[in-house]
């Protein structure tokens, strides 16, 4: 019974994921779980922008682009480029930046730190500018100062949020975002 349920959930997740991205079934079947996960995370990263309010001081100039920086996950960066092509956030063009292992941490509104390397995470967190929405994907990242942390629950990509970190970084998160978060730390 439990196995059947898990299986059903997995299929459902897959179906939903496909639905979200609108990718034809034939191609979707060919992709690996990893690729699927990266696509979902890329989409989520873009969509966070709708539920977070950055202060004007987060941008250098009034016409500065909205920068999403991806550290250590080129696949995610590629997907983001595809998704955001021709789109904007708050009237600003979207710019996707890959951040290599040796690259300095850029000024970005959203900074995704991929991987489970806690040392690197700590480094990037320290280097990240104040108004960056730092997103991570390792257990316990919130305690280190990450604002949003991806988790896999029941074979689905979910996330948890630290309001404390968001506050420190001067970001305001929508209650609707909190409503779909799996876990929210620090009371609003």
């Amino acid at each position, binding site marked *: 019974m439990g196995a059947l349920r898990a299986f059903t959930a997995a299929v459902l997740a897959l179906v939903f994921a496909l639905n979200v991205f609108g990718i034809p079934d034939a191609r979707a079947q060919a992709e690996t779980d990893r690729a699927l996960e990266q696509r*979902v995370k890329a989409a989520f990263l873009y969509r966070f922008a*709708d*539920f977070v309010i950055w202060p004007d001081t987060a941008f250098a100039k009034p016409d500065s682009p909205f920068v999403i920086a991806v550290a250590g996950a080129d696949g995610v960066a590629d997907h983001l480029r595809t998704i955001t092509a021709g789109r904007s956030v708050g009237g600003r063009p979207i710019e996707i930046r890959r951040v290599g292992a040796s690259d300095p941490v850029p000024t970005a509104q959203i900074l995704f730190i991929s991987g489970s390397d806690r040392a690197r995470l700590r480094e990037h967190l320290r280097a990240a500018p104040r108004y960056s929405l730092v997103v991570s994907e390792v257990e316990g990242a919130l305690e280190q100062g990450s604002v949003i942390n991806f988790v896999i629950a029941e074979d689905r*990509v*979910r*996330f948890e949020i630290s309001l404390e970190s968001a506050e420190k970084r001067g970001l305001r998160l929508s209650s*609707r*975002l909190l*409503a*779909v978060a799996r876990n929210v730390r620090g009371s609003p």
Partner: protein
Amino acid sequence: MLRRLRQSVRLKLFVLMLATTLVALVTAVAALVVYDSGDYHDRVVGDLTTQADILGRSSVAALAFDDPVAARENLALLKVRPSIREAAIYNDAGILFAAYGGEGHTAPDVPAKPAFEGSRVQGNDIILFHKIVENGRERGTVYLRARYELTNRLLDYLRILGAVSALSLLAALLISAFLQRGITQPILDVTDVAHGVMNSRDFSRRARKTTEDEIGYLVDAFNNMLAEIGRRAEALLKADRMKDQFLAMLAHELRNPLAPISNGLHLLEAAGAKPEVAVQARAMMGRQVKQLVRLVDDLLDVSRITTGKLTLRTEPVDLRSVIDNAVEIARPVIDTRRHRLSVDCPKDPLYLEGDATRLAQVFSNLLNNAAKYTPPGGTISLHASVEGDRVKVIVVDSGIGMTPETLDEVFEMFTQANTAIDREQSGLGVGLALARYLVEAHGGSIEATSEGMGKGSRFVVRLPLARAVQPKAGRPAPVEWGLTSGHRILVVDDNRDFAASLAMILRDLGNEVRVEYDGLEGLSAAEAFQPTIAFLDIGLPGISGYELAKRMRGGGLDEDSLLVAVTGWGQKDDKARSTAAGFDYHVVKPLDPAELPKILRIAAEHRARVHGT
């Protein structure tokens, strides 16, 4: 019910009130339903749209981050809205994302994808698809299916209408019962009185007036009409009584002279011997016949007055001659009763515009009246004087006088003092009525006064003087006597006594006379006899007098022959008819023997003129 409705004002009022109330109610409810059904739809759609919008907005994050559980939790909040039976959320690709409703919220009937945009009514449900748009991007669609309860609302309205109608029926009953006092009750009162009057002929009943409105006016009018009818009924009864009395008296008055005439005839037949007895008998009979003639003349005058056919031949007349004539007429009665009469009239002629005969009748009636109602040996005075542009004639007697009540009625037709002293001369009670009628016809006035019973009466007549007077030269020349003999005279009348007596008088005057009793015999006699004068009755057996005259004129009768119509009818058109038939002369029965010489003289002159001799 319909029959009762037609007959009852009260029921009509009630139905009127009820119908008005119901019509107003139905109209109001219909208007409310029409307005409300539109309003209800708008409200339901607006409500659902708002609901869908809230659901959509709160589910944007769930859609964005692929969290159907969160979406389902949002939808589950609809539990507090039982009218929403189903709900669903679709993602931006139109694929079902989360559903709600049905048994255990399995939502089996939720459409697989959005079917349309907006709202639609489907049976008892309303379906709404509402797009979720945020930051200019379409995020998905919300689907809601809710109960659409318009029919139930209409049923509710009908129930309310029924209840309110029942209540208003009750109210109408109460109000109509209350109003009945103000409107129907007075009408019912009048109706009751009307019924009473119809049944009992009691015109003294009156309806009670309780209001000052139109019905009050109606009641007043009704009461006035009742009073008027009462007065008329009484007047009719009185007139009827007077007619009865008059008929009784007429019979009596006509019978009175007949006894002495009959006695006189006996005397004449039996006596033969004593000439002085015969002279007395003839004189007595003559008086009685005159009395009879006077009675019938009075009757004819009454008939002319009541039918409006009395005509006056007006000409300038001298008051003096009028009074002389009146005194002459009244003299026999005055002398019989040994009254002293004094007449005081201005010496200068006073001209009136009037009918000499009728004016003489007025004063002779007054004098007769005075003579009748004064005990024998009394005094009667007639005094004439000028008063402005009128003459005033006062007739005063020392008679029995009148009470104030009698004064009011003295000029009424058929009225007589109950205490007539001498029934023999009492007459028909029309004398004063005729006098008043004639005086008024001449533009004058008459009034009676009396100090009371036993203190005499005083009658005052005022007549207008003629304005411009051209008096005729003296009195009419007296009738010339002569040329009354030597005529050949034919008398045709079916009244044998009249015919015989006329023939006797004519023969006595020295004429040749032939008598026939019917029209056809009269015609043949005329041919054989060739009369110079023919006295023809109009109402003849065989052929009428008119026809007879026509045939005689056409049958070779001498054109100088004089035809005289002798008839009981003296109206103007009767005369015109006889003239048209070829008569030269028209005399009314009874034929006064004194007139005969005049007619004979005219015939002689006529003859002489035709023959040019």
